[in-house]
């Protein structure tokens, strides 16, 4: 299998699907020029300007037009450039896209994909670094995916494009250039299935998106110290793989959720609360969340670094839970 970057993996997935289905098209700022990160490189050249549409800086309409186009039977891929700009299109996303199937009693099928590169990346500061995926887990009507590897990003994008649900794809900007194998034919990866990154019996570590590599490093370091970490990459937050996490926590008795997001009311709270509800507190020995303090993302590298959930912080928390 060829090794490609995550950004290239998503490009390959998109191109594959655009070849397969002429109803698939992409719209967003600079899409016809290849996209901000090269995710759309060559798409204009192969599919023409009706299917690789560079738009005005009109986020409300990028989002809302995507919906309208889905309602008549096309399958738009809506490019938001940077997640934070999605906040300029929240009526269209949360009031319209997420609700129209329900409000119309099932008449509408908004089969569309919204791509939102998210997270901290090279001192982009508060308005270009947010990770609010937890919001959308709380919002009925949408699927929420947050892959961490090239293969998963490709497989989930294929699944997203083929799904009849509106699928929100959070792509980790920080991992755009990480490399991994991607098959020549990209199969859709089902939503709601976690990936077991590493097996272990002492502690269940749940992560997603940009934090996966840090968690892998932490798990490796912990293994060296004789501690077995069951590391699960959720890959999607709605639906999410409750069963896999539950089975793991039932085994290890300890749950640590690490997130590149504010801890308070983040998705880690859902994971923790749900596990305690399902298993009962009696079957859980320790629960902990790691994440950002409740502060915006700062600009200066040492300030950014101060917030990061690092392998060291994960190791420290895990050790405290297991030994403590």
């Amino acid at each position, binding site marked *: 299998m060829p090794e490609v970057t995550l950004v290239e993996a998503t490009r390959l997935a998109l191109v594959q699907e655009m070849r397969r289905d002429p109803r698939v098209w992409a719209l967003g700022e600079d899409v016809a020029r290849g996209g901000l990160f090269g995710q759309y490189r060559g798409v204009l050249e192969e599919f023409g300007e009706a299917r690789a549409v560079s*738009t005005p800086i009109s986020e409300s309409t990028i989002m809302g037009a995507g919906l309208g186009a889905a309602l008549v039977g096309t399958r738009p891929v809506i490019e938001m450039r940077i997640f934070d700009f999605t906040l300029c299109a929240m*009526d269209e996303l949360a009031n319209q896209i997420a609700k129209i*199937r329900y409000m119309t*009693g099932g008449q509408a099928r908004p089969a569309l994909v919204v791509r939102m590169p998210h997270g901290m990346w090279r001192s982009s500061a508060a308005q270009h670094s947010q990770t609010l995926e937890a919001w959308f887990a709380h919002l009925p009507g949408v699927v929420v995916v947050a892959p961490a590897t090239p293969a998963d990003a490709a497989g989930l994008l294929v699944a997203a494009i083929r*799904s009849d*649900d509106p699928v929100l794809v959070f792509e980790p900007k920080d991992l755009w250039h990480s490399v991994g194998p991607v098959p020549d034919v990209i199969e859709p990866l089902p939503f709601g299935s976690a990936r077991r990154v590493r097996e272990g019996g002492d502690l269940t570590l749940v992560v997603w998106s940009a934090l996966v590599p840090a968690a892998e490093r932490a798990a490796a370091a912990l293994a060296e110290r004789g501690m077995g970490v069951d590391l699960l990459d959720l890959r999607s937050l709605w639906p999410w793989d409750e069963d896999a996490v539950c089975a793991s926590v039932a085994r290890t008795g300890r749950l640590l959720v690490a997130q590149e997001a504010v801890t308070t009311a983040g998705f880690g709270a859902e994971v923790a609360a749900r596990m305690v509800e399902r298993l009962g507190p009696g079957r859980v020995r320790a629960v902990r969340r790691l994440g950002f303090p409740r502060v915006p993302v700062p600009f200066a590298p040492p300030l950014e670094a101060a917030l990061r959930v690092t392998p060291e912080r994960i190791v420290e928390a895990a050790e405290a839970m297991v030994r403590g």
Partner: protein
Amino acid sequence: MTDETAAMAEGGNSARLLALHRLMRRIRAFEETAVAAHAAGEIPGPLHVSIGQEAVAAGVCLNLRRDDRITSTHRGHGHALAKGAGVAGMMAELHGRAGGHCGGKGGSMHIADFTAGMLGANGVVAGGIPIAVGAAQGLRLLGSDAVVACFFGDGAINRGPFLEGLNWAALFRLPVLFVCEDNGVAAFTRAESTTAGPGAAARAEALGVPAEAVDGNDAAAVDAAAGRLLVAVRAGSGPRLLHARTTRASGHTSTDAAAWRTAEEVAASRARDPLSALEASMLRQGVAAEALAAVRAEAEAEMGHAREAARAAPWPDPASAWEDVQDSGAEIAA
């Protein structure tokens, strides 16, 4: 008698006038019936009726094909009916009953009938604008020659999506007819106190969308203007805007007395009633009063039956509240 009405009659187009009249009577009857049902406590939720504005919906939609699409507003019964949405499904939906177009999940503010190309009323002012332009773009991608009519009120032209959507439609030369249904008021506040500059048509022109103004209470004039504009839209000349000045006969919702309006305003609005005007003009052209009365009676009977049927329909199954959300993860939604 307006020029348009006269021209129509002269051109042997009295069938067209009859069609307009019938449609407007049905809209009026539908909404009067709904208001009564709401007052009787049978229709829940807020009810925004378009009484006094029927000529806009009728005049525009009579120029649309079934496979054309419309997007609408919180005040969307007229648009839906005019586009051919099923009456029984609409009335049941307003009542929140099984058999409603939206299974009782939408109600008046979210009425939709996709089989008739009616893509939905909208609870958000200007919410339909981006959807309409996207629908047009999607239709073109699919190779369809269908067009989209996008209805919104005068209040919507002060929301961002108006600018974004018109610029977008002009840029991509999309087949959209924007219809600004200008009743001079948004909720409880007069349009002139919230809208600067010369108004909807000028804004459209500045965004590259040619615009035309029309007396929105003159059904034949709306019909003619919409027809003209839609010829251009259908021919691929890009979007157009129709600015239709009209009158909201009553309050913002069916329970709002709009007590802040002066007696003169109320009287002036009554005097401009589009149905009375159309009927007066038809009478002058020799249509028999009995014929008009028969249309009215038939419309009222149709809506009365729809109300009866809705009232008799069962409530939706409570379990259906869990359905129609999304495919993935549906099993664990509870």
